[in-house]
């Protein structure tokens, strides 16, 4: 049954890693702007020499 102490230690470590990941995400500003990235992801990468695209 003493294996449970190892498991607790391990699971707490994993949980703390997630907390650290969360704090890191706040720190790097991932919650600052929760709208613009949703638009940005829809922009196509430009392919040069594409001229006929304008007419739709």
């Amino acid at each position, binding site marked *: 049954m003493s294996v449970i102490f190892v498991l607790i230690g391990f699971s707490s470590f994993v949980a703390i890693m997630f*907390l650290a990941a969360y704090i890191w995400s706040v720190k790097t500003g991932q919650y600052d*702007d929760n709208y613009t990235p949703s638009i*940005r992801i829809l922009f196509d990468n*430009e392919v*040069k020499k594409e001229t006929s695209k304008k007419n739709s």
Partner: protein
Amino acid sequence: MRKDQEIGIAEKLICYHCGEECSDDEIRIGEKLFCCNGCKTVYELLDANDLCTYYNLDENPGLSQKNDIKKNFDFLEDPELKEKLIDFTDGKITTVTFSIPQVHCSSCIWILENLYKMDSGIIHSEANFLKKIVSVKFDEEKTNLKNVVILLDSIGYEPDLNLAEKEFEKSAVINKKLWYKIGVAGFCAGNIMLFSFPEYLSLNDLTTDNIKPVFSYLNILFSLPVFFYSASDYFVSAYKGLKKKIVNVDVPISLGIIVLFFRSLFEIFTQTGAGYLDSMTALVFFLIVGKMFQNKTYAALNFERNYKSYFPIAVTIIKNKIETTKPVEKLMVGDRIVIKNGELIPADAILINGSAFIDYSFVTGESNPIEKVNGDLIYAGGRQVGGAIEIETVKEVSQSYLTRLWNNKVFEKEDESKIDAFVNVVSKYFTFVVISIASFAAIYWFPIDSSLAFNALTAVLIIACPCALALSTPFTLGSSMRIFGRNKFYLKSTHIIEKLSSITSIVFDKTGTITETKNAHVNFQGDDLSDYEKKLVKSLVRNSSHPLSKSIFELFESAELLTINNYQEIPGQGITAEIDGNQIQIGSKTYVLENSNNDENNLSTKVYLSINESVKGFFTIGNSYRPKLKEVISSLQDHYKLSVLSGDNDGEKETLLQFFTNRTKMLFKQTPYDKLAFIENLQNKNAKVLMIGDGLNDAGALKRSNVGISIAEDINNFSPACDGILDADSFNKLDTFIKFSKTSKNIIILSFIISFLYNIVGLSFAVQGSLSPVISAILMPLSSISVVVFSTLTTNMIAKKRGLL
């Protein structure tokens, strides 16, 4: 494309760049039409840089360039100013954040993030749509701040450069801290709850008995960051309150948290129980969630603007016939300034040279330019319309007529004390009652069993912790604020709703507030005009961007327009052109009737029309009142004392009486100081005043009043410091908003009653000294959650019923 164009001819000619109607198809590139050369230039610039994706993302995404005045950005070379504007520089790489109010669609984001294609010195640029800002990183060796700004201006996104704007970053830091705290509290609360499971299930076999103490110590470990970090705000606030001898709601909360924590420690270390750490951490977590919910802010709106945001940050001055730029704050008495078309006068000054037509719409709300002659005093805040003028300052910027208003003591930074918040009034009595019950229970049990006395004392303090009390306010007001926001009524913070619910008196500004600035009401007086003549007039005014011309354009309904020749516009005076062989003039009396004196006292502005040198009559441009004004006023009239303050003369008094009754106090020719004093006077008579205004001239009154709401036809435009911004379209809902704020307060009172009921149940356990951790772990979150659910649901339901959702 061809098909598009056919439809275009049949209906309207639409500018490919900005989507505005084109007067003709003169300005074009291939099949693409443009309304003005400005738009065409932007298109050419984008086309040359292979950036036409801009037009594919959104239809006609551009910004109209018709009224754009190309500005001189030389002042950006001033190193001191530069330092204030940029975020960071190491001499080579510079980052700078611009506020760009024009951002409105996905095309805007795209173009602002592709700036590097137009200027190789720009390394990276990133837009934030909600805040309407773009941060640019550029290479100092290849480009400079001035070039970046010029580039932005040339594609129609002129940055709003001013030094006061940097404030918003401060609130972002506070917000981030809250995110950290919520994360830590949520994480710890969740883990502690898991470790408390053996306790909840009352497992009593041998293995769990071994594990339980380990779990308890782990719980202590996890509760430390919650107690010392996440909950610290409550302790600080309670301490600050007590220091000022105010028992705010944070006092009983802190008391509860502290007692919870130390009793748990005591139980765990003496091995007499499992403690209440799960309840404590969950409580803190809920409280911060509530705080977060309340902290809704409108990132793109600024409620703290003062005159500095209106004024340019630098002006062109002339010294020994050399033009240089100088930051506005360093402007001294006697400096000679050159003011170009469209620029603001930064300080009271005397006109030296040039013909000045000053538009005081910022200051008074009146948009018709006033003519000034050499030697006249020009007040700060006016905007020059027409050619360049030279003026000499007679007062410093901060001592000028308009800006001196900001030296008034009402503008001193007061800390947002929420002493008057309803919850704090309740908590004062609440704390007193709880402490009495706790001590009574302790005294009762002490002779019988001293340890039971300790148990009862702490249990009362724990269970009475006003978590539900503290949560009902943020959730009710937070939901109300979101509901208001959906109806285009944006508040600075939630406690404005409470203030709004208790107002007794409403003061309206006239110009721009109860009248519309968009559609001035135009009438023609004089000879009857034939359809042909109407067509002539309409064709002529089509070419002018002056607001009065636009109003006249809307007056006549005629689809067909004639081509015009020899068009001439003399800013501030009038326009003239030759159409179909007819000479048409529209403009001021002096302009149209060449030999007349200008001292006629006209109450409403007159614009004269002459065709082939014979005067046909004049257009009068009167105030047009907001639609539904009468309904709004009549519904407010019975409940509140209404007043109208106007900077204008009393020419409109008769018209106003159609909307207001005689009981309404109407004052005319009010200076900004008079307005401020009027509010102060009302408040001295114990009135709670709601001021509704729009311009800089109302700034003092808005600030002084209990609730100051500024009305804006375009919410992203400048509005003075205020508590809330109301979109002009929602003006008719004003009455509903005030009523709803009262409802919100009632919902809070109901939630209080619910939380008191829970408290009575809890206390009945507590005074007996028999509060088990399980009961506390169920009762405390249950009361919190039910209060949150109740307040949020009721608020939204009532809003739906009243048509606000």
